């Protein structure tokens, strides 16, 4: 990989990070708090690419001013060949075994340090293509059903709910109150919860919200089982708002044995996916 290709990869990677960081795209993969770091990293990578070009141009110019014009002047894209042309492919090989080990094995060959970066660096293009061309979706029902529910008891208990009107709760709040507060504040109330749909292997529907600890690789769901009046067609990953009432029915998450509460559904309506697909209100 020569220096021009490196410059291009640096520039594209930096650009992709900037693109993801300056739109809502990054929210699909990482937490909102990472945004300044993402933009900063994008700027640094672009700066590295620009600096590479700039110093290279300056080096070429000073060489020409020294009266030692670079060979291959017409090869504007490869101004650095000062060595014999047939040594480049060998520069990355390990030295012959009779070479003394240690750093000074390069000393007799002043141009040996013209080594190129490993081919594996080309792989940097892959996440870039995936990010810009495919833009994979946020972790959804597939991940949710393969991962155990992350419901945990809140050590500081559950605050009082407003006394009247329909309750708007998050998935984690409903599940936590239903399981650890025995549904005390929930019984007899009309409850609205929004999340996305996921179906288990038997087609049983769950209302799910994912949360991130760090990035989408460790996304964990909180699940609520749905019973009652469900629409005839359940499309996994579609966002809905469920209106219903508390029910003491429980089940165990088949993946990790965590308790999964149920909600008795009266009606559902489709809603728009939230700007941040992950619930950042719980687990930090």
């Amino acid at each position: 990989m020569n220096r021009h290709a490196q410059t291009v990869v640096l520039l594209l990677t930096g650009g992709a990070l900037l693109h993801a960081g300056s739109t809502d795209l990054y929210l699909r993969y990482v937490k909102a708090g990472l945004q300044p770091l993402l933009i900063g990293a994008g700027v640094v990578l672009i700066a590295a690419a620009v600096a590479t070009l700039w110093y290279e141009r300056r080096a070429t110019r000073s060489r020409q001013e020294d009266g030692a014009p670079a060979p291959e002047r017409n090869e504007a894209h490869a101004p650095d060949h000062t060595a014999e042309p047939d040594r480049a492919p060998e520069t990355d090989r390990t030295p012959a075994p009779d070479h003394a080990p240690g750093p000074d094995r390069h000393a007799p060959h002043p141009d040996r340090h013209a080594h190129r970066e490993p081919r594996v660096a080309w792989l940097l293009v892959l996440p870039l293509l995936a990010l810009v061309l495919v833009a994979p979706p946020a972790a959804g029902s597939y991940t949710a059903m393969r991962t155990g529910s992350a419901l945990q008891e809140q050590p500081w208990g559950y605050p009082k709910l407003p006394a009247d009107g329909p309750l708007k709760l998050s998935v984690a709040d409903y599940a936590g109150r239903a399981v650890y507060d025995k549904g005390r504040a929930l019984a007899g109330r009309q409850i609205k919860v929004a999340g996305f749909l996921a179906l288990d292997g038997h087609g049983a529907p769950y209302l799910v919200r994912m949360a991130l600890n760090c990035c989408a690789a460790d996304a964990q769901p909180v699940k609520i089982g749905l019973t009652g009046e469900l629409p005839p067609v359940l499309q996994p990953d579609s966002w809905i708002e469920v209106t219903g009432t508390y029910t003491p029915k429980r089940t165990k998450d088949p993946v990790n044995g965590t308790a999964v509460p149920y909600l008795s559904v009266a009606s559902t309506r489709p809603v728009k996916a939230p700007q941040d697909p992950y619930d950042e209100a719980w687990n930090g």
Partner: protein
Amino acid sequence: MAITKEAPDRPGPDTDAGASPQDSRGRHLNSPLLLTMLLVLAVAAQGPLRRVLAAPVTQSWMTVFVAVVVQALPFLVLGVLLSAVIAVYVPPSFFARALPKRPALAVPAAGMAGVVLPGCECASVPVAGALVRRGVTPAAALAFLLSAPAINPIVLTATAVAFPGNPEMVLARFVASLLVACAMGWLWQRLGRGEWMRPPERPSYEGLGKGAAFWGSVRHDVMHAGGFLVVGAMAAATLKAVVPASWLNAAADNPLVAILALAVLAVLLSICSEADAFVAASLTQFSLTSRLAFLVVGPMIDLKLFAMQTATFGRAFALRFAPATFALAILVSALVGTVLL
């Protein structure tokens, strides 16, 4: 003995580009052209590609893959910048003065110094490479490499937040990680041989302006570590999207198997050390000691780190260092877990 000499200056300007005319015109396509063709091809085949990629497994795989890369890149860049600062602006004599002369003492000192690098393991590999290049005893640099991602304040805070009911977990993690890091440093000092560790190679920046040297170092490190980061992200994505999590349940029943299973899982998942505490907390069916093993092994050795260590220090080094670290980390966390948890 404590401090090895720096590589002698290599004269002349950096001629990194190095592609000879024959190389770029004859046998090989030149790389910018190849890149452009690849991009054009991807745009042209967008339709069929999208259909293949619409399957839930592929989508989940790609989400995890992109997420790991996007999450790690900023920290990698941070580490690379720090490593470039060390390489260019900190004179080698600084480390000679800052670290104790005797390697046996330099190891714990460097291990404790890991407290000040607020990052994850992606950042510590290039920094450790820069330390070795700057003449720090390899044993001390390795102790730093192992301890920095596990015992810095950010990671310890995350651990405290993830285990609100078990504050002793933070102490256990700190103690076990520092013990393993120092033990590996001393082990390397006694048994390690110089030829196993390829001196981190890079063009010399002597004779260049500081700016050129700085950006040259940044570019070099990003290209080296970045490619291997992508390899690790692919492995983690494959495991996360393809292997069913319910397999873990079977392992949780036996205490010894549980420790081994979580240690292996830490290696395979390659989660960033700032996040692994939360993942460990979610593995509620496992014992605290086995989760400690997960937290100690993960920042020290995983697929992504192995690939990055291979790139920085050479394969002969990584093949010996990684299994030894793995075994020692399991042993120490089992002991510390029995005492503290």
